[in-house]
């Protein structure tokens, strides 16, 4: 019978950010030869450049209004921790699902228009 090795001690001090920084710092000397004034470049800038070029490959070349809308929807979802959706996702029942979807938030009947009015006048 095989037993898996206990790797917890190995991962205890494992910090992904630290590892990424070490890798980027090693790349830094290589980049010095490419950029004239390498002193101006920080690992964070390199990381951003790498990320941007990766995103460029993922995002379609033609940014149609539909793609912009799709990206907006996923950006919004990511802000509040919802998982991304596929570009072809269409829930035709969404309007019905929205109706009363947060009725549990209050136990009494309220007048939201009045609450918002008060907020806007504060």
């Amino acid at each position, binding site marked *: 019978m095989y037993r898996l090795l206990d790797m917890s001690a190995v991962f205890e001090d494992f910090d992904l950010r630290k590892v990424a920084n070490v890798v980027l710092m090693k790349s830094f000397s290589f980049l010095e030869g490419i950029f004239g004034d390498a002193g101006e470049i920080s690992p964070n800038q390199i990381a951003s450049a790498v990320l941007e070029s990766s995103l460029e490959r993922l995002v379609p070349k033609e940014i149609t209004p539909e793609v912009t809308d799709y990206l907006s929807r996923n950006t919004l979802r990511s802000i509040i921790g*919802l998982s991304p959706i596929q570009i072809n996702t269409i829930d035709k029942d969404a309007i019905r699902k929205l109706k009363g979807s947060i009725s549990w938030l209050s136990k009494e009947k309220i007048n939201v228009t009045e609450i918002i009015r008060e907020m806007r006048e504060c």
Partner: protein
Amino acid sequence: MSASPLAYVDTNVFVSYALGEEREEKFQIAERFFEEVSQGKYIVLVSRFVLTETLHTLRKIATEQVYKEIGQNLSQSELIEIANSREFRNEVNDRSLKAFRAIIECITSDPDHFKFGDPKTIYSEEMFSKALQTLSACLGEFRVYHFRCLKCGGTIGCQHCGFDWEIAYKAFNAPDLTHLLMSSSLGCKYLFTMDQYFAKVPRIQSQSKIILLS
């Protein structure tokens, strides 16, 4: 579907519909509007400004609800302790965020009926200059209100001087005008709201048409 005009929907319509019939006094008005949306009469343009206001509204509602669930007859120091406690903060945050996620889940999964404002839209200072011109040309109204208890809604008066009424200035305001001008900038033909104060906003050139739902 693509021929349907874009409709900017005010925060009150959104939240009212999501709260539902059991919890919202004006729900049926909002429901009628969303029925028209589902029939393809309009496409809802969701502005991030509306969503920001939505989250704030949900936090207000959650705070009021959690407060009402706390026992009666607590002293001020006891209430301060509760209000500053991690449990109270977490409870309000968890409930409001859960509600907000439920709304976002629905509106982001139906691109046929809900569109989002172009993130590259820029709002100019000139836009707010129009708002200032409009606001400076109109004085609102003054209303007299009885002080009311936040918990039970009963009328109350000051324990020291007996003062129990106030005169309040009521009018459409900077946030209302911001919604309206943003609506125009985002290319919406209509702005739908349930707030009666919008009826008093004078027509600004090239703005969205205000539809007061009632």
